[in-house]
């Protein structure tokens, strides 16, 4: 889209225009051309910040959001409660602040880099000085630039620029191959440590030996009949419910990356010994799984491993893990991602012939089958093996960056469902700001008490939400701020991926990924599931 910057833009307005364009369009081509327009218009520092921001490398947070909220309310001359209520409805802190502030005093033009440097300089300031600085920025910017500035401070840009898209735009701009660009964008770098030249334009840079490859991802299928080709073209594996990881062994060093491109080497010290077993010049793709006494444990056990700052020997003992490997991306120092999957897998199998089974390194087994129909049986049985379904991989597929239709499929087992009773409703955020869409559901205990056990937000149509909203208004028993307690009358079918014990919830139960599937107008509360039903599910899932 040859956009507004045909006119003369100044300072951060380029970035603001880019951001608005990216948000206004869903078309890849338009996004790419907006990125290229931006890259052609701004100095190198602003290019780097743009790439950094859209790949999650935001500037360090220097001001607490609590202070920002206070200062914004002060500047807007409204009480804090009104600020908070507005925030709840708008759903985005940066946007709320930008909209609430009084009109711009004198507009000042600074580049993206200059504003970010100002934000970084807040770090060493006293609170009063910080406040003055933030007020200065707010006074100098118009509403949409303020929004960008606030986003830079709070770091919450969530706009759809995938790695693939960014690589595509940069490749067109620099005439470098997109897969080279994608590789350069991976791993640990920040706009403060790298220049555009050193990161993108130079052949090699010093961080390159720790750099992971972009992860290949799978699409979901619902039916095995969706698979193309012959059964012999496909490999079936279990789909593991852990943390996707890439283990890099290069130059006598070892690095472990998560799919979110976080370096998680320190969180899993037990893998460090693998340096002596795996030859340098090897990169493995697999899943980190909580694993004890020959069994895969529920996902919650691995959560402690990633959330704790320090991994103590006690944690290692209580929550041991294994790395279950399913792909080989680099072998003998060579990038082999362009080899067909089956060749990579054969090399991987050979590597594992020399791995001691006492090590926390395992090979994800290939599941033999002759007919597609057999996959159905394998899938049904997958939960007994601690997995959440099947992975189906095309034998001829290369390991490309991101998702590609027809290469890797995930075929998950059907979610659990329960029928539960709506008891609280809260108005939604953002696009559902003036509808009650955040619901709390309960089941009856054997004593006849209604026990809340889960919240759910999504899964109904806008039309259904409007109908339920009318009902909520007529059936409100009590109001607590934005929350309404309603008559226990409506029954909803809730789907979820997993069920765990929880000491934090009164019901003793916590669900993974709960969502509403249907409004069960055909059911009355007496027909809903009960706490006993949930406890039975919990027992079965262990």
């Amino acid at each position, binding site marked *: 889209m040859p956009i507004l910057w045909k006119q003369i833009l100044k300072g951060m307005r380029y970035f603001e225009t880019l951001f608005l364009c990216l948000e206004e369009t869903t078309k890849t081509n338009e996004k790419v051309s907006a990125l290229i327009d931006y890259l052609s218009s701004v100095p190198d520092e602003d290019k780097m910040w743009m790439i950094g921001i859209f790949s999650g490398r935001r500037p360090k947070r220097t001001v607490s959001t609590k202070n920002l909220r206070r200062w914004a309310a002060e500047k807007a001359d409204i009480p804090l409660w009104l600020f908070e209520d507005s925030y709840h409805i708008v759903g*985005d802190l940066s946007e709320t602040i930008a909209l609430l502030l009084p009109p711009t005093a004198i507009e000042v033009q600074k580049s993206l880099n200059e504003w970010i440097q100002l934000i970084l300089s807040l770090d060493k300031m006293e609170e009063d000085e910080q406040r003055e600085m933030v007020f200065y920025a707010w006074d100098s910017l118009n509403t949409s630039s303020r929004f960008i500035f606030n986003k830079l401070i709070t770091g919450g840009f969530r706009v759809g620029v995938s790695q693939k898209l960014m690589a595509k735009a940069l490749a067109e701009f620099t005439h470098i191959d997109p897969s080279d660009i994608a590789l350069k964008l991976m791993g640990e770098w920040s706009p403060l440590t790298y220049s555009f030249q050193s990161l993108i334009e130079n052949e090699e840079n010093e961080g390159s030996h720790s750099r992971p490859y972009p992860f290949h991802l799978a699409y979901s299928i619902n039916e095995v009949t969706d698979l193309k080709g012959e059964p012999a073209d496909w490999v079936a594996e279990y789909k593991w419910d852990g943390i996707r990881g890439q283990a890099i062994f290069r130059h006598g060093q070892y690095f472990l990356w998560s799919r979110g491109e976080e370096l998680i080497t320190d969180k899993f010290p037990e893998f460090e010994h693998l340096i002596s077993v795996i030859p340098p010049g090897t990169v493995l793709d697999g899943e980190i799984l909580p694993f004890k006494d020959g069994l895969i444990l529920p996902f919650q056990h691995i959560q402690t491993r990633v959330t704790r700052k320090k991994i103590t020997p006690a944690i290692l003992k209580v929550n041991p893990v294994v790395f279950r490997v399913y792909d080989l991306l680099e072998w003998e120092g060579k990038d082999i991602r362009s080899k067909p999957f089956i060749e990579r897998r054969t090399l991987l199998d050979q590597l594992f012939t020399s791995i001691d089974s006492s090590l926390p390194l395992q090979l994800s087994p290939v599941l033999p089958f002759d007919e597609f129909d057999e996959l159905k049986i394998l899938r049904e049985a997958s939960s007994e093996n601690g997995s959440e379904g099947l992975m189906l991989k095309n034998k001829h597929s290369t390991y490309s960056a991101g998702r590609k239709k027809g290469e890797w499929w995930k075929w998950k087992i059907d979610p659990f469902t329960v029928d539960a009773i709506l008891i609280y409703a809260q108005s939604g955020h953002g696009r*559902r700001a*003036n509808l009650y869409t955040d619901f709390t559901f309960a089941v009856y205990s054997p004593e006849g008490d209604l026990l809340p056990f889960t919240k759910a937000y999504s899964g109904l149509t806008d039309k259904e939400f409007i109908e339920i909203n009318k009902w909520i208004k007529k059936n409100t028993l009590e109001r607590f701020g934005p929350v309404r307690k309603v008559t226990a009358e409506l029954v909803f079918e809730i789907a979820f991926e997993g069920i765990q014990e929880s000491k934090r919830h009164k019901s003793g139960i916590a669900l993974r990924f709960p969502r509403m599937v249907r409004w069960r107008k055909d059911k009355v509360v007496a027909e809903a599931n009960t706490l006993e039903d949930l406890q039975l599910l919990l027992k079965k899932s262990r």
Partner: protein
Amino acid sequence: MTNKGLLVHTALGLYCPKADVYLDPWKPVKKAILSHGHADHARWGSSSYLCTPTAAPVIKYRLGEINLETLPFGEEKLINGVSFSFHPAGHILGSAQIKVSYKGEIVVFSGDYKTANDGFSEAFEPVKCHTFITESTFGLPVYHWQDQKWVFNEMEEWFKNNRNNGQLSILYGYSLGKAQRILQGLPESVGPIFTHSTIEAVLNVMRNQGVSLKNTMPVNEHLTRAELLSGVIIAPPAVQNSNWLKKFEPIRNGVVSGWMALRGARRRRNADKGFVLSDHADWEGLNEAISLTGAENVFVTHGYTDILSKWLIDKGLNAHPLETNFEGDEVL
């Protein structure tokens, strides 16, 4: 509800027992007084209606053969000793605030209103009263409207860009109110204005009542793409994502509504572009209007009732939220 029970809040809507009259009733009643013709205010089935002369033709067009009387702005009508009068609300053509007085007590029901003058609807006039029943559609301090001139300039820029890219610009706005405001506000430079048939129908009702409106051309199959590209199309929100649009691709969708102030709402509406132009008062407008009535008692309806009430209470007014059946219905 009000001090001496002049108006009460019932399941059918606001009711004046002394005069046996309902204001914008939700269901059929004997006597209905209407603030304006939008569907959530003017409902079918009552035995008799009263509205302003400028609002009447569209209400008749929409509700069919009804028993409708009109009362010009500022004139009084006595019903069993209770005085009723209409005062401009500035929301759409013919929209009124309804003033109800009896034995020295004055209650004003705002209907929907905006304080800014759009140059087409009769401009809002504050009315002194003891009790003010105000709408609060945009009753949050995040809503702050720009001057409409600024918005029309923004539209002009947008059309130009789209035209350069060979994309047809379509603006979405309600056929009653927003469509006329867009039509009258667009600068001449945008070229011919094409309309969807439901909008054209309302425009023709207004033309027949003697309202001066710009020329429009209903979209029809004889128009070439080049002709359409030389202008813009105005269509009601309901046709967005409908088959009607398929033949116009490539197009750009511009949604014209106060809700477009929030990014979340823009995404929800699938708008390529949101133009923030509302026929309701913004936060400042609501506060200004409430303060100009001099009312001690304020009832807040239609919108962010709880928040605006709490804010007014903080400011020392006697304010209460008032629920309506139609909250949450209002998307535009």
